[in-house]
């Protein structure tokens, strides 16, 4: 497993049988591959699908079935299609159990930034804000640092926040944090990493769960 797969695999273990899950672009799209046996989740795509299935085999693509990242997908038994207003009614109305999203940054209170970069023209917002307001739980999947090694978990976001609403869980390639009303709590460290590495690469404050675990 590469680090993206490791993140996806760890998120997948948080999902419960019957969950309605919206998985954003990037790492979240890998999550379905790792859902444990006996757990059935239903993937919602905000362009109007409930019941997204695996990516299609080459040569078996139906161009009229795409996900929110505009990639061809398939649908599973029990799937349905609906219009965009209905789809976002589901999201804002609290009918999505979990949204799994990427982020540019997360501050130490759990607020995420994932839609705009200062100094660049902001020409896209898409469905991220709706998901952050409406989904019952928000799981954030990120690499712990940027490509040039800067921490993504920061004291204060440099980028504009996507919502005042905080994430519930942050899963990086190094560690897992719960977001609580008192701030971030480190609950797990991946086996290949260490508390020292996590502390070094995290700018935002966090506390350590007394039952801190090593995870795979």
């Amino acid at each position, binding site marked *: 497993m590469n680090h993206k797969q490791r993140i996806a695999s760890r998120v997948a273990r948080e999902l419960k049988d019957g969950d309605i899950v919206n998985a954003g672009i990037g790492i979240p799209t890998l999550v379905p591959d790792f859902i444990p046996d006996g757990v059935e989740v239903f993937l919602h795509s905000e362009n109007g699908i409930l019941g997204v299935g695996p990516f299609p085999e080459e040569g078996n693509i139906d161009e009229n079935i795409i996900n929110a990242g505009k990639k061809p997908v398939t649908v599973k038994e029990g799937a349905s299609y609906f*219009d965009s207003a209905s789809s976002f009614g589901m999201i804002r109305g609290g009918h999505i159990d979990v949204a799994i999203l990427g982020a540019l940054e997360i501050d130490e209170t759990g607020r995420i930034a994932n839609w705009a970069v200062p100094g660049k023209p902001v020409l896209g917002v898409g469905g991220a*804000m709706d998901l952050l307001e409406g989904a019952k739980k928000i799981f954030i999947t990120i690499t712990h640092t940027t490509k040039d090694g800067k921490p993504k978990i920061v004291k204060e976001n440099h980028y504009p926040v996507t919502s005042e609403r905080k994430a519930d869980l942050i899963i990086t390639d190094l560690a897992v944090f719960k977001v609580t009303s008192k701030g971030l709590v480190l609950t797990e460290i991946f086996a290949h990493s260490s508390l020292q590495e996590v502390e070094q690469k995290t700018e935002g404050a966090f506390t350590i769960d007394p039952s801190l675990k090593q995870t795979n």
Partner: protein
Amino acid sequence: MTKIIDIEKAVSLIKSGDTLMVGGFGLVGCPLSLLEKMEEADLKHLTVISNNLGEPGKGLGKLVLQKKVKKGIGSYFTSNPDVVNAYQQNELEIDLMPQGTLAESIRAGGAGIGGFYVKTGAGTKMSEGKEVREIKGETYLFQEALQADVALIKAKKADRYGNLVYLKSARNFNPVMATAASLVIAEVDEIVEPDDLSPEEIVTPHLYVDYLVVRGGDGNES
């Protein structure tokens, strides 16, 4: 009384300065034959309400390159570099909305709702200049309804009355746009007999649809 017209006639009903709604999420569910015919038309200063503004040289993307579009109102234009470029050259105005707020404001425009309140965007940069209201202890933003002069939508099938059904995820913004414009032109893959559509499966009842055009057999996929 027939609603079926040819694509040229349909495009001739659009005027410079019009506000258009254009269906689709990316190019899926986008009325590509109508947009292609618009490339040849002498149109300018269009305001386009659409989730995206096409892809480079495709769909609405071509009309942006032709500088027919004065303003884009939508949710995600980043995926077309030509749009980013036109914006940076001050050739294109942009009004950006969260995707759900966009869809809802179009629905509101078609349903006689003057405006509504959503939490989406509250406390963010998107709320700048927006009216805020507390409802049951939570912060909401006011959003006015959107309407257009012309809606160009894409459906799978129509009967001669103008009842529409859509195909898979190509439904997206089309049904709400069908309700929110003074003139609604639907591009369809085929015209079927009324009996082929059950009254329960019709997604867009015919009262919303003014004209039907059949997608050109020009190899374009929609």
